[in-house]
């Protein structure tokens, strides 16, 4: 196998020593480590095709990966399988400024694409997740991730306008308008076969190129922080602001996040007396100062009204002011961002139950999740965001832990199981579902859908070599 791989990509692009494989055995989360047999770096679509054919001939499991930061063990290999590291396949193939889309390879990171657009003064932008700057834009689109443009434009998969995919037999397919036109303007009007690859966690093929939509970058922007003192006040504000259609993003963070950002590693699980319970960060963009002032005015009016009706909310604070007071809050000034309090806290472990669900049920979900986390001794670190105009939202319960402590890992697993059951009972659906959670949910998911998924998987990957162990396959 090694000889064949070296023949395809060269010796520099095949790793098999214990120390080289070490970073690929595990990710941030509590999943058990798994040893790959090789890590292979591909640089072109053709190389990917040949590698996949080789794996198919030997029935070798293959797991695509870029940064491995999905926080769910989704890029961990199957035992004895290979990891196909796509981080060196990182060309920004084109940016169509007229029709506002880009064509990128899997290794293009959030930081790369931002730099590319800024350096060329292209007045277009995309959404940033809170994931580290070196994470793949393409991978997060395939996972239906959430960003600071998701309130306006939905999850990242909704921006995909065409895919180029290597199927598990090594053949190549193009989806969307790209299948016929030289312009990858959208997935319409053909049947949307891109759905075979979106949300599948790499279990149906390896995407080698993606066309995806960019959005106008406005001349002015502002990020405002709103301190709130009750879940009801917080989400009443979120729901009302969504319906104004004026905000680009309304991120929500529960009180422990600010403390952790300011250096408190393990905040006491209950808030201090008089402390705000949530921070909303509201992004506004505008072409003119008058447009910005109008938007700010509407925001202030809505907040004042909510306050008057009995839910305490503070007047919006400009993030620039907060930054002057405490630079540690700079993490929220510019995206993409390295949230070191989550990724670099010593213990190394980060996990969450991240869900999409109805905004109308957020207070209920937050109360139940907070109770569970506090009872189990974890600060209730919660991240929220309304999506796609407010039709649904993100509700995510986050915990950090010491990965080297078996007791902590056991506590985390129990916490996550209880949170998963709670959110599912309340109608929320876990995204980027890790294998352990899929097993728990399997009995509750519509059997018709599960059967259809099984048939689809068998159709494209009859040998079952693509990222085995994910989504129950």
């Amino acid at each position, binding site marked *: 196998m090694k000889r064949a791989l070296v023949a395809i990509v060269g010796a520099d692009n095949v790793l098999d020593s214990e120390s080289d494989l070490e970073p690929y055995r595990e990710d941030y989360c509590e999943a058990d480590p798994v040893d790959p047999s090789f890590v292979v770096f591909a640089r072109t679509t053709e190389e990917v095709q040949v590698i996949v054919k080789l794996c198919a001939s030997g029935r070798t499991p293959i797991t695509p990966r870029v940064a491995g930061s999905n926080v769910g063990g989704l890029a961990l290999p199957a035992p004895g399988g290979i990891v196909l590291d796509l981080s060196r396949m990182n060309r920004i193939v084109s940016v169509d400024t007229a029709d506002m889309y880009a064509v990128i390879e899997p290794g293009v990171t959030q930081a790369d694409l931002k730099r590319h*657009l800024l350096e060329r003064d292209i007045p277009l932008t995309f959404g*940033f997740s809170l994931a580290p700057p070196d994470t793949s834009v393409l991978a997060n689109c395939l996972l239906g991730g959430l960003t600071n443009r998701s309130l306006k434009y939905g999850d990242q998969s909704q921006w995909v306008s065409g895919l180029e995919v290597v199927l598990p037999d090594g053949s190549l397919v193009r989806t969307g308008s790209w299948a016929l036109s030289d312009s990858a303007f959208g997935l319409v009007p053909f049947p949307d076969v891109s759905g075979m690859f979106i949300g599948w966690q790499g279990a149906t093929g390896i995407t080698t190129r993606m066309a995806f939509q960019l959005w106008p970058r406005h001349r002015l922007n502002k990020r405002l922080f709103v301190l709130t003192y009750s879940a009801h006040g917080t989400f009443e504000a979120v729901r009302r602001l969504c319906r104004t259609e004026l905000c680009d993003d309304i991120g929500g963070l529960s009180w422990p996040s600010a*403390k952790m950002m300011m250096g408190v590693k393990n905040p*006491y699980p209950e808030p*201090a007396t008089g*402390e705000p319970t949530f921070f909303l960060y509201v992004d506004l963009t505008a072409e003119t100062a008058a447009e910005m002032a109008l938007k700010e005015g509407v925001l202030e009016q809505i907040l004042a009204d909510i306050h008057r009706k009995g839910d305490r909310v503070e007047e919006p604070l*400009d993030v620039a002011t907060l930054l002057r*007071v405490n630079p540690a809050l700079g993490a929220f000034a510019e995206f993409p961002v390295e949230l070191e309090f989550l990724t670099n806290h010593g213990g190394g472990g980060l996990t969450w139950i991240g869900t999409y669900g109805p905004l109308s049920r957020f207070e209920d979900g937050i109360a139940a999740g907070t109770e569970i986390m506090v009872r189990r001794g974890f600060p209730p670190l919660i991240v929220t965001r309304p999506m796609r105009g407010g039709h649904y939202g993100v509700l995510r319960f986050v915990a950090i832990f010491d990965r080297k402590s078996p007791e902590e890992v056991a506590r985390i697993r129990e916490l996550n199981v209880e949170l998963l059951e709670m959110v599912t009972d309340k109608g929320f659906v876990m995204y980027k579902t890790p294998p352990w959670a899929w097993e728990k949910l399997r009995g509750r998911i519509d059997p018709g859908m599960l059967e259809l998924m099984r048939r689809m998987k068998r159709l494209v990957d009859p040998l079952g070599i693509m990222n085995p162990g994910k989504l129950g396959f």
Partner: protein
Amino acid sequence: MKSARAVREECEDGGDGAAPHRAASGGLVRLTPHALEASAASLVRLHEPERMNLLGLLMRGLLSANLEDPGLRARALALRGSIDVRAGDMHVTLRFAAEGVHIAADGTSANARVSGDMKSLLGVVTGAGMIGPVLRGRVRIGGNPFLLLRVLPLIRARAGGARAEGDHPALPRAEARP
């Protein structure tokens, strides 16, 4: 996660320690060379950091940044007394002692007080001035006015300490932050 007791003990090592050296409130005393050489961050201590409220944490960031400045550091270390800062329903007491500044949210009495809503207090801290907000009733002050006057420069955000508006790569130009 540590027990509350363990947390308290961890934070109290060295703790306040200020009492034996404390001069009359608002008074100035001679400085110890040790404190003058310590790192700014180590001069600002939190009582029970894991339970500290947001206001206390903001204050720590601000004071740590300001005490990098030798002039402000000397002023802070020469100051004796305590001031209660209240933003909305959150409050902390800043105690100035020979070893540095100790921040607690324990509700003990202080020599001076300043209170207001978060936005107005941040305005004062970032240079909007005290008089206007006090006259408008958005910020209230009480206790030893001399101590207040001496503390004010120490809790002013400096342009060079925390980054000022416009300096940050993200702000305020749209180009910098997508």
